[in-house]
């Protein structure tokens, strides 16, 4: 099992000018790690659509790498996204799934078939160019540079240590660096010249 921030630190070092799109459990962790927040947008609130948003952005900005940090529960809600992405074959899309086996933002209830199904296997058979699975940080660190230079769409499943939140949403503390998605989109559009 990998601590998600340690994995994200590896990605941050290698990201270059990539746009990074975290969702759900990955949001706070990525905020702890990112060095270029104007090229980050947290995509939530639409039942697992971060990877689908990433596809649109990847098609519109084909010369920029797009990295999405999806959740396993999020991906299960929108599993068809794998076929949609594979169908358009975006060369610049890197689809990470943080597999912790639980709904981390709602108290840690298990997701369906937790630990039994292979997300990387489904992505591979859906038609992604490559699909990987890691449960060892050192092994991921050794391969990360090469993976992020492959032609996409690339799928990377990272088995992470669950971080469970169990407070009602209204009582949760916001990450000091968190900003509304709408504001993050304004910053990103300014950054990439599409505003």
């Amino acid at each position: 099992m990998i601590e998600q921030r340690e994995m994200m630190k590896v990605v941050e070092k290698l990201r270059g000018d990539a746009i990074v799109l975290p969702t759900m459990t990955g949001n706070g962790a990525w905020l702890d790690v990112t060095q270029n927040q104007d090229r980050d947008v947290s995509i939530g609130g639409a039942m697992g659509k971060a990877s689908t948003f990433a596809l649109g952005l990847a098609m519109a900005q084909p010369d920029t790498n797009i990295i999405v940090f999806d959740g396993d529960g999020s991906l299960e809600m929108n599993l068809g996204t794998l076929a949609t992405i594979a169908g358009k074959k975006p060369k610049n899309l890197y689809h990470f799934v943080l597999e912790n086996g639980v709904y981390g933002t709602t108290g840690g209830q298990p997701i369906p078939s937790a630990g039994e199904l292979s997300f990387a296997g489904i992505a591979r058979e859906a038609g992604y160019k490559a699909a990987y699975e890691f449960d060892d940080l050192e092994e991921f660190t050794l391969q990360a540079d090469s993976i992020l230079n492959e032609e996409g769409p690339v799928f990377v499943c990272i088995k992470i240590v669950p971080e469970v939140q169990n407070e009602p949403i209204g009582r949760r503390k916001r990450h000091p660096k968190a900003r509304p998605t709408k504001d993050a989109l304004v910053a990103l559009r300014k950054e990439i010249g599409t505003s």
Partner: protein
Amino acid sequence: MASQQAILNPATMIEEFKKNGVSHVVALPDSETNFLYELMDAESSLDVVPVAREGETMAVAAGLIVGGKRPVCLIQNTGMFESGDSIRGIAVDLGLPIVMIVGYRGWTRHGVTPDSAARFTEPYMDAWGLKYYLVERDEDADRISIAFEEAYENNTPIVVLIGDEYHGFNR
């Protein structure tokens, strides 16, 4: 009883898309819009993005808009129902000018509407606070341009209902 005629030509829709600079059509086809789908596929200025489920169309469109493109979503009203949280969480809450062309399955002009898909369509859009226009024939097609103008001027999603779905789009 007068019969309805095929009065909305798919080519008219394509012309409207071109007039409004549409770059991508994010679509989940249904049997009634198949002819339009074939025309779009053959039109070099349009990139057709097939999705597995209608709720994906708004997310793909959002990414395209943020990346500087000008998409349109093409789905049926039944698919719009399925898309509820994408419309809320992406199109409405993020204030994105997503134009959705929605096949109005079951629409009749005489008020007897046995198909619940049609009966729920307008109350659904009212509940989401979505503005919408109805297009039934070629003469109505400029409402698509109006939808684009308003969507981009106000940064808001707008629906264009295609009320001739069972007629004009069929061969």
